[in-house]
C-alpha cells in the first residue's frame, strides 16, 4: 500500500461526501418547506415571508448553496431550525447511541453467523446445514419494523422481561440490537456457509489435514481465514446499511435516541439544516468504513494489492 493509494481514496471520499451533501441539499429544498411546517396554520403571508427571509430561504438556490458551502468549509453546519442550536451539536450528542446500537448489533450478527455458517459448511446437505439455511432465509426475510414490534410484544409486553423502548440500561439495548442483528445474521450466515464450503474443497485444506493438524485448526484457521473476505465484505455492507438505513427503522420502533431517530424527527419538522448535517456525518462514516474494509482485506489476504 502506498501513500498514493491513501491520497486517492481520500480524494474519492471527499467527492462522495460532497456529492451526497449536494443531492440532499437540493432534494430537501425541492420537496419540503420548513416555513409551512414551523409557522401556525393561520400565519399571514407577510409573516411567512419574514420568516423565510430570516432563515435565508427566500434567496435564489445558488446563493443559498454558495453560502452553505462557505460555512461548511469552516465546519459550520448552521443552526437547527427546530431546536435553535448548532445542528452539529445535536448530531454529536446522538451519534454515540447509534454507534452503540449498530456496533453491538453487527458484533452480535457476526458472532452468531460465523459459527452457524462454518458448522453448516462442514456437512453440507445434512440436518444442521438445512436448519441453518432455513433459519437464515427466515431471518433475512423478516421486515425489521415487524420483527421489532414482535420482539416488543413478546419480551416486553407478554413476558415483561425487557423494557419496550428508550436507552439507558444494557437491558434497553438487547431488543433493538437483536432486531438490527437478526436479518444481518441470516445474510452473513449464508455467505459464511457458502464461502466455507468453497474453501473446504480447496487442495490446501487437504494439505493441512494430511499434515495431521487438528480439525479445529484446519477449519478455524486455514479455511476460515480464506473465507473471511467475502464475509467481511458483506459485514461492511451491513454496517453501512445499518448506519444509513436500518437504524432509522429500528431506532424509530424502539424510540432509541440515535441519529436515525433524529433524522426522522428532522424530516417531520422540515429541519433542513439538521437533516443535512445528519447526512453529512453519516456519509463521512460510510466513506471511512469503506476505506477501513480495504485495509482489512489487505491485512487478511497478502495477495491483494491496494493501488
Amino acid at each position, binding site marked *: 500500500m502506498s501513500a498514493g493509494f491513501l491520497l486517492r481514496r481520500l480524494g474519492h471520499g471527499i467527492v462522495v461526501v460532497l456529492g451526497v451533501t449536494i443531492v440532499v441539499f437540493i432534494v430537501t429544498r425541492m420537496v419540503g418547506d420548513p416555513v409551512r411546517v414551523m409557522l401556525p396554520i393561520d400565519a399571514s403571508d407577510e409573516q411567512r415571508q419574514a420568516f423565510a427571509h430570516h432563515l435565508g430561504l427566500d434567496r435564489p438556490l445558488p446563493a443559498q448553496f454558495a453560502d452553505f458551502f462557505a460555512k461548511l468549509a469552516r465546519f459550520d453546519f448552521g443552526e437547527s431550525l427546530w431546536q435553535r442550536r448548532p445542528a452539529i451539536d445535536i448530531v454529536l450528542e446522538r451519534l454515540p447511541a447509534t454507534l452503540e446500537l449498530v456496533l453491538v448489533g453487527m458484533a452480535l450478527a457476526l458472532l452468531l453467523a460465523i459459527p452457524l455458517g462454518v458448522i453448516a459448511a462442514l*456437512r453440507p446437505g445434512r440436518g444442521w446445514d438445512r436448519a441453518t439455511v432455513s433459519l437464515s432465509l427466515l431471518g433475512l426475510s423478516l421486515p425489521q419494523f415487524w420483527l421489532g414490534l414482535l420482539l416488543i410484544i413478546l419480551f416486553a409486553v407478554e413476558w415483561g422481561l425487557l423494557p419496550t423502548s428508550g436507552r439507558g440500561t444494557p437491558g434497553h439495548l438487547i431488543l433493538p440490537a437483536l432486531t438490527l442483528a437478526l436479518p444481518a445474521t441470516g445474510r452473513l450466515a449464508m455467505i459464511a456457509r457458502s464461502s466455507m464450503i468453497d474453501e473446504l474443497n*480447496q*487442495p*490446501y485444506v*487437504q*494439505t*493441512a*489435514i*494430511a*499434515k*495431521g*493438524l*487438528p480439525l479445529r*485448526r484446519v477449519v478455524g484457521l*486455514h479455511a476460515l*481465514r*480464506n473465507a473471511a473476505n467475502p464475509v467481511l465484505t458483506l459485514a461492511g455492507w451491513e454496517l453501512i446499511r445499518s448506519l444509513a438505513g436500518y437504524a432509522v427503522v429500528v431506532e424509530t420502533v424502539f424510540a432509541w435516541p440515535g441519529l436515525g431517530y433524529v433524522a426522522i424527527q428532522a424530516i417531520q419538522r422540515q429541519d433542513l439544516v439538521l437533516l443535512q448535517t445528519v447526512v453529512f456525518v453519516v456519509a463521512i462514516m460510510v466513506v471511512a468504513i469503506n476505506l477501513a474494509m480495504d485495509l482489512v482485506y489487505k491485512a*487478511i*489476504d*497478502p*495477495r491483494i494489492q491496494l493501488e
Partner: protein
Amino acid sequence: MSAAAAEGPLLQVKGLQVRYFTERGTIEASRGVTLHLDRGETLGLVGESGSGKSVTSQAILGLIREPGRIVAGDIVWKGRSLLAADGAAYARRVRGKEIALVFQDPMTSLNPVFTIGLQITEVLRHHLKLGRRAASDRAAELLDLVGISAPRQRLAQYPHELSGGMRQRALIAMALSCEPELLVADEPTTALDVTIQAQILELLGSLQQRLGLSILLITHDLGVVAALCHRVAVIYAGRIVETGRAADLFARPAHPYTMGLLRSTPRIDVVRPRLVAIDGTPPDLSHPPAGCAFHTRCPIATDACMAEAPSLVPQAGGRTVACWRAFTPAWPGEAANRRARG
C-alpha cells in the same frame, strides 16, 4: 522368528475397497488394492486417470471424504492398522509425522494467506512440540535441504511470491519436516514444466538416498517411474494388475495393460507415423465389467477373461500378475521390435 519377518513391510495395503456413494450411483474407485512397501524402497503406482491411484494415496492419509468411504480392506503401518476402530489416535499420530504427503498441484496446495514459514513451523510445533524459535530454525534448515536459496527470507514470504518449482520444493520441505519414514508423492511433477520436473525428481531421488526414505510415487508417467522407482505396481480400474522390480517390468511386461502402456509411451528414438494408444477407454467404475476389467480393451482376451477376474498371482523374481494369459505378447509385432532394440 527372524528380525526381518517380525518387522515386516513398512506399509501394507490389503484388499482396499473405496466406494463413492453419489446420487447417480455407486462408483467403485478402488476394488481391492493390495500392495506393500519396504523400508528405503521407492514404489511407483502407475495408472491412467481414474484408475484409483490417488484414491489409494488418499486412503493411506485419511483424506477420503464424503460421499467416499472405505468399505473393505485394511491399511497397516508398521504392523498396526490405521483403519481399526481403536486406531484413530494412532492414525492421527502417524499421519503428517511418519507418513507425509506431497501433492499434485503446488499452486493450490499451499494456503495462499499464510507465509511459507507458518505452514512449515505449524507441523513442527504440532507434532514435535518445538518452540517458536526452534521450529523456525528447523524450517530454514528444511528449505535449505530441498535446495531453496536464502531460506530465512523465504520463511516470511507468501506462496504467491514463489515460482511453481519453488512451491513444490516448499511442499516437499513441509512433508519432510517431521522426518517421515514414508513420503507419498501424488503426481508431484505433473503441474510443473519439464525442466522443473527433472529437478524435482532429482531432489526426491537424492532425499530418498540421503534420508533413507520410502517413497510411494503415484504417477501416470512411465518415464518418471523408470527414473526413480525400485519397484512398480500397475493399477487398472481400481485393482493392481501387475507388480515387479522396475527393470524387470519394463524389460518384460507380463500384463497386456502394462504392455499397452509401454507401447503407447512416445519414444524420441523411434519414428512413428502417429501416437499409439490402447484402443477403447477405461471402464465406467459405476458399472465395472465382469471378469478381468481389461478384457474390453485387451487384444488377447478369451472367454475365461470375461467370466472371472484373475487374482494377483506370484511369479518368479518377486513379481505378481493378475492375468489369465500372463506374459503372452498382446501386440506381437511390437514386442518383437522392443526386443530387437534391446
